[in-house]
Every structure is written in C-alpha cells, then in structure tokens.
C-alpha cells in the first residue's frame, strides 16, 4: 500500500479518536457562552460572557474554588510525600516482603470508589474529620497514594542503588541521603506524582459527596449541586474553567519536560 496513504489513514484515525474523547468536554464550552438562562447551545453569533461575570460575583463559586485549591494542594502534598517515603522504604529494603507490601499499597486501585467513600464516611464521622477541609484532603490523598507510588517507584527503579550506599558510606544518615541524593535525582517522578494527585483531587466528586456537606465545598461538588438544583449555565462556565486549568497544568508539565529533555540532551 502507498506509504503516504497509510500514514494519512492512521493520522485520521488518531484525530477521530482524539475528537471522540474530547467531544463531551468541548460541547460544554459553547454552552457556557450562551446568553440564555438555560443550559442550551447558543446561536451562531450569539455569544455572551454573562455567566462568567456571575461566577465572579457569586461567592458560592469563589469559596468553592478557594476550597478546591487548598484541598488539592494539601492532598497533593500529603499523597506525594507519603508515597515518596513509602516507595523509598520499599526500594531500600532487601526484605522478601517488600514486593508484597508494594502490592498491598496498590490494592485501593481495585476497590470500588463508592466503597472507599462509604468507609471513609463512617470513619470520618467517628473521628471528627467529617465535613472538614483537612478531612476531604486526607480522603483525596488516600485515593491518590497508589498512583503516586506507581509513578515514584518507576523513577526509583531507574536509580542506581549505589548512590544511596555511597551517601551512607560518606557519613550521611538515611534521612540525609534521601534528602540530599535521592530526592534531587527523583525530581521528575515526584513532580509527576504531585501533579497527578493535584488533578485527581481537583476533579474528585464521589468521595467528596460522602465526606463533606455544608462547611466544605469543592468546585466539582458545587457543579453537582448546581446541576441537581437549578440547571444554570454557570455550571457550564465553571466546567469550562476547570478544563482550561487542567489543560494549562498539563501544558506547563509538558513544556517543563521538554526543557529538561533538551537540557540533558545538550549535556550528553
């Protein structure tokens, strides 16, 4: 077959799949620009930013945005640092149990989220974490830990164990070796884990519905409420903003990765 044709064929297939994946998200963008009071597609030349203006005025949304941001940052910090310490511990240990422990840490991945949510609800109510910012952040961190462990462990598997030993032989404690030698070498993996857990918390809704009610509200939760209570296009506007922020984070990560690659390339 003509190689040009084959290449165009697969490019087209890729584009169609990409569009199929992105379409639901894309639909929300014009909806958010409608001038009407209902969720519907605007007319061809009939765009308005009124729902975005309303968002800024309505402190329900700004409070939710602020809560979401704080929860995402805190849960990202918790999940990343816990996973980092756990992964390094497993990596350092020569025990025959370390593989089993690693698998155990990944079990949350196969537990249905709704079951985790229910369990967290009952524990959070008993411990007083229910409906607190820190409670939601911890709940999100629990969901993120397996992802972070996978990411950081794969970085660690490329790391020469002799670096750690060298630091110890020079007189560093295990903590100093981790801080001075391992963490700087694992930066890309740690950044990926932090980003991953941030985004995971940023758009989490199932667990949030269970462990928070009135005093804490995240953006996805407010969207959920908005859809149930009054079908208001400001929900579409918030969703659009969420998508744009996620795209920005992904772009920053991608650009950073490119520059790191370019830098290490030129030093070779």
């Amino acid at each position, binding site marked *: 077959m003509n190689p040009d044709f084959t290449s165009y064929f697969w490019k087209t297939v890729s584009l169609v799949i990409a569009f199929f994946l992105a379409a639901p998200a894309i639909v929300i963008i014009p909806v958010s620009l409608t001038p009407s009071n209902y969720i519907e597609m605007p007319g061809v030349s009939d765009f308005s930013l009124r729902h975005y203006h309303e968002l800024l005025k309505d402190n329900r949304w700004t409070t939710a945005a602020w809560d979401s941001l704080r929860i995402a940052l805190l849960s990202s910090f918790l999940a990343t640092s816990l996973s980092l310490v756990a992964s390094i511990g497993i990596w350092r240990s020569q025990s025959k149990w370390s593989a089993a422990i690693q698998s155990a840490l990944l079990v949350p991945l196969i537990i249905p989220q709704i079951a985790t949510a229910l369990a967290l609800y009952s524990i959070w109510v008993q411990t007083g974490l229910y409906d607190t910012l820190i409670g939601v952040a911890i709940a999100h961190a629990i969901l993120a830990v397996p992802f972070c462990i996978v990411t950081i462990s794969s970085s660690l598997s490329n790391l020469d164990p002799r*670096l750690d030993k060298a*630091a110890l*032989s020079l007189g*560093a404690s295990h903590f100093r070796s981790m801080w001075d030698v391992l963490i700087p070498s694992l930066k890309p993996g740690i950044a990926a884990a932090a980003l991953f857990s941030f985004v995971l918390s940023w758009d989490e809704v199932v667990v949030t519905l269970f462990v928070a009610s009135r005093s804490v509200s995240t953006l996805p939760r407010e969207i959920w409420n908005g859809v149930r209570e009054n079908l208001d296009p400001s929900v579409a506007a918030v969703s659009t903003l969420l998508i744009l922020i996620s795209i920005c984070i992904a772009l920053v990560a991608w650009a950073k990765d490119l520059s790191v690659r370019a830098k290490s390339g030129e*030093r070779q």
Partner: protein
Amino acid sequence: MNDMKTRGKFLDMDTFEAVRIDNVSKYYGAVAAVKDVDCTVQSGEFLTLLGPSGSGKTTLLMMLAGFTTPSEGQIWVDTKDITHVPPEQRNFGVVFQGYALFPHMTVFDNVAYPLRLRKMPARQIRQKVEQILSLVRLDAYADRHPRQLSGGQQQRTALARTLVYDPILILLDESLGALDKQLRGELQQELKALHRQLGRTFVNVTHDQQEALDMSDRIVVMNEGGVEQIGTPRELYERPNSRFVVEFLGDSNLLPTSLAFGGTDDPSRSALIRPEAISIGASDTKPTGEDQMMVRATVRSTSYFGSDQLVEVALDSGLTLRVRVNSAHAIPIEEGGSVSISWERRNLHLVDN
C-alpha cells in the same frame, strides 16, 4: 564491646593496627556467598581481594563497608567489634563500581559532600576540596557535572570524594574495571603513588590478576566463598599452594613429578614450572649443570607478542608445555621443528593435585 553503637557518632579512631575479619560467613538461604574467611588487613597496606566472579570478594568488601551483615563471625578494628556498626558510622571510604557520583552535583559539591556532613566550616571545605582535587589533577573540572567527565575523571572524582575526609580504611570495588586497558594501567600507577604518598590503608577488589600483582602489598585469593591463599604477589606467583591459585595467577605448566625432577613419580603432587622459566634451545644442546633437566620436544605453534613470544611444544609423551621466550634471546623457532627444552630444578614448585 558495643560502645560505638551510639547513633550519629562516627567511628572515633584516627589510626588502627589491623582490621581483622574473624571467621566470617555470609549465607543467602542455603548458599554460602562467603564461608569461614579469616584474614587481617594491616595498617598502611594495599590489600587486594582477587577472585573470579562469584568468589565472594565483593560480598566480603560490602561486609567491611557495613552494607552486608555477616551471618557468622565478627569484624574487628583492633579491639573494637564493628560487625554491627552501620556504614554511615564507620568512617571508611568506599569507591563503588560505576563510581556512584551524585549526578545533580558538580565535582566540587560531590567532593565537598562528606565534609558538609561533618559540619566543617565553608572556608575550610573549599581549601580541603581544592587541595584534594589538585592531588588527583581535577582542579580544572571542579564546576563540571559527572556526566561531562570521562571514565577516568569520574574514577578520580570518586577517589577524591573518598580521600577528602581522611577515612582510616579505603575500600575499592572493581574501581578500574570499566576502563580501557591503557587508562587502567595509568590509573593503577596513580593509585599506587597515592597510596605511597598518603600512607592510608586500601582494600581493593578485582578479578584482574595483573592489577592485583602490580598494585598489592598482599593478595587474598578467593574461590567459591573461601580464601585459597594469602601472600605477597611474589609468594603467590612463585609458591602457590593449590591448583586454583596456579591456574588463576599467571600462565603455568603442571608436570608429573617424575618428568620434572627425574626419578620416581609422586602421583599426589604435580610440579609447577612457569613458561618464562623454561629455556628453549637447538635440538642438539647438551645439559650444562647438575640442576638442569632437559627433554626433546616438537614445536606445535608460536605466538609473537613483540617483547616476547609464546611457544607451545609437545613432548614425546604427548604432554604440551607453554614456553615464553624473550625476543632478545630468541633462537629461530619453526613450527614442526625439533628443539630441546630445559629447566632448573630449583625453579620447580610442588602443588597438591
């Protein structure tokens, strides 16, 4: 006995008489990586652990460094038992295989790291690091990162990082193994000079017999987890005590004793004669002294190396011998030709079969 196990404290010794490996074994499951090793490292010496891969030499070195705990036995620095002192408190230096330089730090920061851990003032650190970098001729490379260095420069950086805090014992794990032959030779000479200049104690692990013979005050030959023989390079080469040491160190011929000495055969032993201790002459040469043994042989093959050539000859009995002939004293040797070969009885050494 465990007075040094106080956390956060370095092994508090400036000098020592000897490090003693006392009946040490290490088992992984049922497999003995190191079995009943007894050996002593004297202060100031350059000791090499020599053996094929899997002989336990690296495991033994890692037990000295503290990364591996012996299953049995103790390790002593003079009268102190350090068997369970963790590596970060031993104040030994280790140059790892592959060097393990910290990739995100410059050469300067790599070398300064152990001093920073010891909380030395910054000005003193600078002075000390510059001094050691000029000792290993890396002053011009202080701001480079490890990946910008050649293999030899990386090796010298790792050595500088180890020497900078004056460890009482320096452990080298195949530290020249990855380099090409010529560079390895140069670095061997440098390392020898450094050892003489600093008067520190080195324990080196290698599988390279030339490196071991050239650099060491003493060599520990290891095989299958145990010690075969300990001695100076000359002792091991001239008076090996087992067939393993004979075959591992240098080129060798093993002869039946009846042939080697003349007279009756001792089936329990063989006579070692090194290829360079055999002379080769024209087939009509006559013996010149009482001590000399001479036999006729046929030349099988010759290999020319410039400074010398290796000749393989077959005796009438079918036994083949390797003879090393110095090019300066060579007689014309043709493949298939008849020659007489001879050796002095005093150059023979008996080895148990």
